[in-house]
């Protein structure tokens, strides 16, 4: 039985080979829908490469002195590159479709297009079948590596994130399947309806269906783009409510005040939090620190750095609001 990497590699080669086939066929038959479907395949290839890279780097989590977090962010970057590439392709296809409107072109040999389209559909379904179990498994495995005592809440959260992943995969494959179906439908209509004396609306079908495919592609890509961009912008992860967290932290025993609370997502389910905590004196600090650490663990945040500040500090290191300072520095 093939391991996960093996499956990814096989799918990669299969999809890439098929991409080449579709490009050649689209050149031969001048079918624009086939060309756009081939680009769709290319984007699948890229996302498979990204998945491979991500899996590879996620296992190599040691940091180096230059990359103290290791290469974990590679997955997010790869997703962003994939999304940007797809959107660029969308625009390219859109423009070519508009060009077709001004100069309509007939499809030569539509039978080849039908067959190739059907095979493409099969390849997509095969991919879905291959990865149905894989996507969920990799999420769980990463989470297990990270924490020994998984609380029930954390399990539920990782469940939902893997479900999100599966949903993303499902949408993607659905988009692929629709693309292949559109290609086949287009070629079928062309075969049966086109005669040199036939109405020329058939010629405009190709670019129209192309535009539909572009819309589908865009719709399935945009969430991916948004999510990876948000992570790279150091956003607070969606499942964390800052106000609530802040309130709960302040209500912990021994905590006088919280400054500079920053929570951001490194990649996947690794969340990092930093804060300044004001307490009474150094003696009681260790207990407070333990409580805070446990609190963050319960919330699912395992990499925390908490700096103590003591209430008799008048000239502490945190005498100014850091975020304001960042803003000031950025503006002047």
């Amino acid at each position, binding site marked *: 039985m093939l391991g996960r990497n093996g499956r990814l590699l096989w799918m990669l080669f299969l999809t890439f080979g098929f991409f080449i086939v579709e490009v050649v066929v689209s050149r031969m038959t001048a079918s624009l829908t086939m060309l756009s479907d081939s680009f769709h395949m290319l984007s699948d290839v890229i996302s498979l490469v990204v998945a491979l890279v991500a899996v590879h780097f996620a296992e190599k989590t040691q940091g180096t002195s230059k*990359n103290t*977090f290791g290469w974990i962010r590679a997955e997010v970057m790869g997703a962003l590159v994939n999304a940007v590439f797809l959107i660029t392709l969308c625009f390219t296809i859109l*423009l070519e479709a508009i060009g077709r409107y001004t100069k309509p072109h007939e499809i030569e040999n539509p039978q080849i297009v039908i067959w190739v389209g059907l095979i493409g559909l099969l390849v997509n379904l095969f991919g879905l079948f291959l990865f149905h179990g894989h996507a969920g498994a990799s999420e769980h495995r990463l989470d297990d590596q990270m924490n020994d005592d998984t609380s029930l809440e954390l399990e539920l959260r990782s469940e939902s994130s893997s479900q999100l992943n599966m949903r993303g995969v499902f949408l993607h494959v659905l988009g692929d399947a629709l693309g292949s179906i559109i290609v086949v439908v287009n070629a079928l209509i062309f075969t049966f309806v086109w005669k040199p004396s036939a109405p020329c609306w058939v010629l405009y079908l190709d670019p129209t269906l192309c535009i539909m495919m572009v819309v589908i592609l865009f719709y399935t890509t945009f969430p991916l783009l948004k999510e990876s961009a948000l992570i790279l912008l*150091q*956003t607070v992860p969606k499942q964390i409510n*800052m106000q609530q967290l802040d309130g709960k932290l302040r209500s912990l025993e021994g905590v006088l005040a919280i400054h500079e609370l920053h929570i951001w997502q490194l990649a996947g389910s690794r969340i990092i939090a930093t804060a300044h905590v004001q307490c009474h004196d150094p003696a009681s600090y260790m207990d407070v620190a333990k409580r805070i650490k446990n609190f963050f663990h319960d919330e699912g945040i395992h990499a925390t750095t908490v700096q103590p500040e003591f209430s008799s500090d008048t000239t502490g290191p945190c005498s100014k609001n850091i975020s304001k300072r960042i803003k000031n520095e*950025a503006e002047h």
Partner: protein
Amino acid sequence: MLPLSIKDDEYKPAKFNLLVKVSGWFRSILADKTSRNLFFFLCLNLSFAFVELLYGIWSNSLGLISDSFHMFFDCTALLAGLAASVISRWRSNDSFSYGYVRAEVLAGFVNGLFLIFTAFFIFSEGVERALEPPDVHHERLLPVSIAGLLVNLVGIFVFQHGGHGHSHGGEGHGHSHSLFNGTVGHGHDHGHDHGHDHGHDHGHGHSHDHGHGHGHDHGHGHGHSHQEPHCHGKKSSKVHMWCLAGVFLHIVADTLGSVGVIISAFLMQKYNLMIADPICSMLISILIGVSVVPLLRESIGILMQRTPPALDYALPECYQRVQQLQGVYNLQDPHFWTLCTDIYIGTLKLLVAPDADTRWILSQTHNIFTQAGVRQLYVQIDVAGM
């Protein structure tokens, strides 16, 4: 009519909400010099692209239509830079605890990606044209290319001061900028000599595909900005460096393309050199790719949370000094990363003796790292033996 006063948020109808938002954005754009420039140049580019598109449709020239598409594509790069310069000034809120300053780096990265894709497409077209040389018709493209060249020259002039020219600003800063400027400068000087020695002005893509084309003019914009260090508007240009870097590279790529079309039109009419055309496209695409690499490398470094290159040598020294402080046993888990240009954030854990003076250690550590340039530091104190 715009409402004169907005008191009840809940009762604002949706239309007014949108108007208020949009006018807010406009005000924000016009307030800052860089985004103002970006906005006007974007308008200029857009109108030129529309004119070209309409002219192409009217005269039924596919070359002009696809050239206008290229200009639209450049407009998206400008739009990304503009959006980033506005977004990065928004205040931090509950969802973005650090604010939106990272938007610029992201925009620079995305622009770099666009350029790589452009280079790739040009290369593939060059290959295609080499395999089946098409007929080339130049007559209508020449005036359009000249106009395009003028538009791009305006862009270069406007953004030349903003994109580079800040190789000073303190030791901590000098490194990261000179890394970018240095490698870019190097790449460009190289191309500069190359371009001039061979009298080889990269004529590119014509007629039925892309009269516009892309390429690099090394002797032009970059040579200037490196020889004259700019001292004015230093800080504001530093902040927008990321927005402008990608935009600038894009504009320069276009400029040479226009120049290339003009030159190659001339060459083809006089010497009938058809084969030079695809070779030039391929060379141009390689040049574009090479020139984008420094931008990509630096932005990827920042986005991947890499230790700031400027601090690579300073940090081990700081670690040593901290470990020599009285009461500190060990320094663990240091993480330093760049939020945005020159804003470094760091976290580390100190293992200290039970009787150590925590406050003193904290303030000393902060001093040490502030001298290195890291102002936002989180130091966790773990007391040993507990």
